[in-house]
Every structure is written in C-alpha cells, then in structure tokens.
C-alpha cells in the first residue's frame, strides 16, 4: 500500500511542493481547513513523532517555524494553529508524520477550543507524579550531526520587515 505523503514527496500526485530540503518538505493541503493550510512532513516515512530521531524533529520544526513566518508575510493572517495528530485516535488519517500549519484570521469559522474536563485532585496528582518520574529519565541528543540547512535562512528571516511587525503586534497584547 502506497503512502499518500510519500507519493507527494516523490512528485507522483502532481502537487507541487512549496518547500523542500534534505530532510523535510511541505505542500499546500489540497482540501484545506482554510486557504493557505500547509502540511509539513519529514521525507522519511514514519508514522508517529516518537519514531523520528531528535535531529529529525529539530529539522521538522525549524521548517515549520520558517514557513509559519512566511505565512505571516505572504498572507493577511492574524494567527496560526499548529496541529500534529499523533496516532489515528488523534485524527491522523495518513500514517506519515505531518505538521498541519493552519493560518487563522478573525471570522474564519474555525475553532479548536475544547471544553475543559474536571478531574479530582487525586487523579491530577497521580498523573503529575507518574509523569514526573518518567520525565526524570529523559535525555536529549544535542545534535551530533551537522546542520544541513544553509546559513542565509535565519539571517534573511530576521531582516524581514513583515516578521518584525508580527512580533510587535503580539507584544501589544496583554493578558
């Protein structure tokens, strides 16, 4: 069985990529939640995030962040949602890790707001302790591989006047 995203990667579906590099690529979703909905994927076919190496995770989110900045510049948007459906229970339809980058503007008719659920103090504390114990074993690979990305990327993004404005705008919000 072929994977749709692998076919996209290999250019078999006639959909042009908006971004590609050594380890990641991105396309516009053909059936977008809103216009400008971008899907960012690792080239390697793995099903869930946990199967990616730390290095691949870094690459995936560097691309995602760069594209989210580009979206702010290229389209008149007011925000973005980033959603990863990790597993079919979380709504994942294609078994290939994908980061959905969804531009948002007021009145776009989308809403991802959930109703908070109530749990007892005991339930919450049990999970807290359990998670904290598991988290103690975490170690991170601080990148032994060489960065594949080319230098100009960061510098150029910083120079962008649009990016500056987006940041300024969000500084004006107070809680």
């Amino acid at each position, binding site marked *: 069985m072929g994977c749709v995203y692998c076919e996209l990667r290999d250019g078999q579906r006639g959909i042009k*990529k*908006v*971004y*590609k590099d050594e380890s990641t690529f991105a396309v*516009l979703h053909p059936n*977008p939640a809103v*216009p*400008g909905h971008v899907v960012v994927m690792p080239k390697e076919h793995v099903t869930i*995030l*946990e199967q990616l190496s730390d290095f691949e*995770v*870094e690459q*995936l*989110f*560097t691309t995602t*962040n760069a*594209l*989210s*900045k580009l*979206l*702010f510049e*290229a*389209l008149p*948007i007011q*925000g*973005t*949602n980033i959603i*990863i*459906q*990790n*597993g079919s*229970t979380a*709504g994942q339809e294609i078994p290939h890790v994908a980061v959905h980058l969804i531009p*948002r503007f007021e009145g*776009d008719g989308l809403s*991802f707001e*959930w109703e908070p*659920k109530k*749990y007892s103090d005991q339930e*919450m504390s049990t*999970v*807290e302790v359990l*998670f904290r114990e*598991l988290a103690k074993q*975490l170690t991170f690979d601080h990148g032994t591989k060489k960065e594949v990305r*080319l230098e*100009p*990327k960061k510098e150029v*993004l910083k*120079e962008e*006047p649009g990016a500056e*404005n*987006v940041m*300024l705008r*969000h*500084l*004006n*919000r*107070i*809680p």
Partner: protein
Amino acid sequence: MLKPNITPDSKMAELQEKLKKMSPEELREFQKKQCVFCQIISGKIPSKKVYEDAVSFSVLDINPANLGHMLLMPKEHYSIMPQVPDADLKHLFKVAKSLSSIALKGLKAEGTSIFIANGAAAGQRATHFMVHIIPRTQDDHVPLSIPQKNVQKESLEKIRIQLSKKVEELLGPGYTEFDTKSVQERAQAKPESNRFEQPILEAEYTEPKAEPKQQKEQPKTELKKGHLKSPRKKESKEFKKGEPRKETTGESSLDEIARVLGGN
C-alpha cells in the same frame, strides 16, 4: 483560564497611551510582568510541574482537555512561536516528543494531539507561547479534528505561487517547485533587459508570472550568501526613498491595541 477584570474606559485610554509610547523591549517587559505563566515558571504560583530544564518548563494544564494534558513552554517569555529563537525551539520540540511518549507510555493513551495557537485569532488566551500535549483516547470528544474543504484549484494555485515566491526570494530556487517552466524561461531571458525601466519596488508587486526578478537568475543552482543578500538590501533602500512603508495589517496602531484588549 484567568479572566482579567474589566478596566474602566479612562484607565483603558491611559493604558493604551502608555503602551503606545513603549519600545518593543519595554512592551515585552510589561507583558512579562503580567504573564501568569512566567509566575508559574518562577514558582510564584504553584503548579503541577512535570518537567523542567534550562530552556523549557512543563506543567499539567489545570483546565485539561483530557487527563494528562500538558503545557510545555520556553522559560523565557515569548508570545508567539515566530519570536522563539531556533535553538530554543528545536530543544522545545525534542522535549515535546519525549513528553508525548511519556503520555503514551504512562497513561496507555492511544495517541496524542500536539497543538499550538499563535495569536488571539487562533484561540490563544495567554500571551506566553506554549505547546499543548494532549493524550487521546477513542471518543474523548476533543475537537481537534481538522476540517477538509473543497476549494477551487485556481485559488490554491494562486496561494502556492505566492508562498513559493516568498520561499524563492529568501532561499533561492532550490527550495521550492515554484514553476519550473518559468524559472527556465527566466534563465533564458536576457539579463538586465528592462531592469532599470522598472522600479524595483514595483517589480516586487507585479503578478507572479511577470518574471520580476531578472537579477537573480544567473546563480541558479548554488545558493550563496552574497547573492541572497544584495538584492534584498536594494529593495529596502527603495522602500525608504519612496513613500513611507505601508503596514499591511496596520498592526501596533491604537485601534489594533484596543481591538486586542477588547478581545481579551
């Protein structure tokens, strides 16, 4: 979530006046002081902390979408993802991956949703950038499914060209499938043709198909620092010489602040 008290109009006007005069650094400092999550991170407000290291901090959400819903944030105050430095962001998502696997292992969850809202329009409530990690089970009614709509191919194509053009502008042709045919055509076109007849500023905004960027043609395959930088600098000079740069969305105006404040 915390709801701010409603401020009287006079106070509001005063506050807006103050905000307007602040430099970006002062604004950030101001926002940081008001930020509940900065206080949680510094320990002034008690929380159910799950993980902490030099860069990141994770707690259980007190209004969880599901049991085990975690919030992961950078310790430094940033309001949206584009502000976070790449190095911190990379680390943050490695932690996110690990916390997600903790949720899968610890709670025997069947999946996780990783969710980020950047900006009030995206449903962001606090001004501290954060990643939600939500353990998922069948039929848990967490509304994080992504709707799929049918759109016209033409409008999709228009956005694709717009975005690819931005990517190509910043990184060169190797990073996108902008339009192979037009790239070839542009490569064959005589360099320098009407380069001086058309002001650079205007060329920037002509239709994507109109081959505005002849000066970028020759070094097609190899991306070099200099080649990217020089044309961009020219553009920004043009901006200054001509009329004042238009702010596309009118951000940081008083109206915008009022709207944002009102929306909270």
